């Protein structure tokens, strides 16, 4: 098992590598590149995590697994708040998101927050896609240490 610090620095390096290696006009591609990396990781992780699980009853059950077990295994804590409109939109709120707690509070660094959220978003999308849920995952930061994850599920 690797230490938390190593993983966090690895993630930071990954973000800065992706942003270093692109030309100015391709800036928006960085986010999708990171997202794609996360997708791949999420897909493989969920396969390993759900090896001994029974089948999920429904979408909400899948979401609960994501909030409790998946979050627990990846971030060592559970999602603080899960809300849904029962029409396929889920909002997962994590008040102490690992990749952001190290950043200074205040508006100054809000701009760079999305860079550090693309990979985790991709991971969620990858995990859910392997559980048969196709969705769009977006992240939203309302205030620096407290952030929100909005999860829009595309209706079938």
């Amino acid at each position: 098992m690797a230490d938390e610090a190593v993983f966090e620095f690895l993630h930071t390096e990954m973000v800065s590598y992706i942003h270093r290696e692109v030309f100015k006009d391709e800036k928006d591609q960085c986010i999708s590149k990171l997202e794609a990396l996360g997708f791949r990781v999420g897909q493989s992780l969920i396969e390993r995590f759900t090896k001994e699980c029974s089948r999920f009853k429904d979408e909400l059950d899948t979401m609960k697994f994501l909030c409790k077990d998946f979050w627990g295994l990846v971030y060592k804590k559970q999602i603080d708040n899960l809300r849904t409109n029962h029409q396929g939109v889920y909002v997962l709120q994590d008040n102490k998101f690992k990749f952001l707690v190290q950043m200074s509070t205040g508006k100054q660094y809000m701009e760079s927050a999305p860079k550090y959220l693309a990979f985790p978003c991709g991971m969620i999308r990858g995990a859910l896609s392997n559980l048969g849920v196709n969705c769009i995952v977006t992240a939203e930061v309302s205030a620096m240490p407290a952030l929100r994850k909005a999860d829009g599920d595309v209706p079938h």
Partner: protein
Amino acid sequence: MSRQGNRAGDPRKVNGELFTLTYGALVAQLIKDYENDEQVNKQLDKMGYNMGVRLIEDFLARANTGRCNDFRETADVIAKVAFKMYLGLTPVVSNWSTTGDEFSLLLESNPLTEFVELPPGHANLNYSNLLCGALRGALEMVQMDVDVRFVQDILKGDNITEIRLKFIKRLEDAVPVGED
């Protein structure tokens, strides 16, 4: 109800699979981005270096090891404290040169390569080159210029993974221009 019970364990450790898979995704991306393995190695080394430069501070703050008096002591601290703390394994220190400025770290397992098989055509790729960069970066921050490279790698069919460290020189703190 939680399905798997709480496998949280040590809060300072991340899930090993998460770490391994993330690193794998990164290397795969680098291979896509660059034409040859040498360039990938160089990038991995650079990233490792940046990580090492920061890790050393975390290490000094947490490990409480005190000052090393010679390179042998440094080697022991790297293997027994640093590797243990950050990757959860203890490599064997061996193959000292007669002058005492060069040694090898022998790793029987490598968490970075847990699910990895090298596809054909990547004979020159040092998959775990990040480790070399991290060691170089961390040691540079404690005034040691050290050359770090892979000698053997289980991924390439060797029996053991061997990282060679060669002490080059002691770095002196440079005084900024205009200061006495």
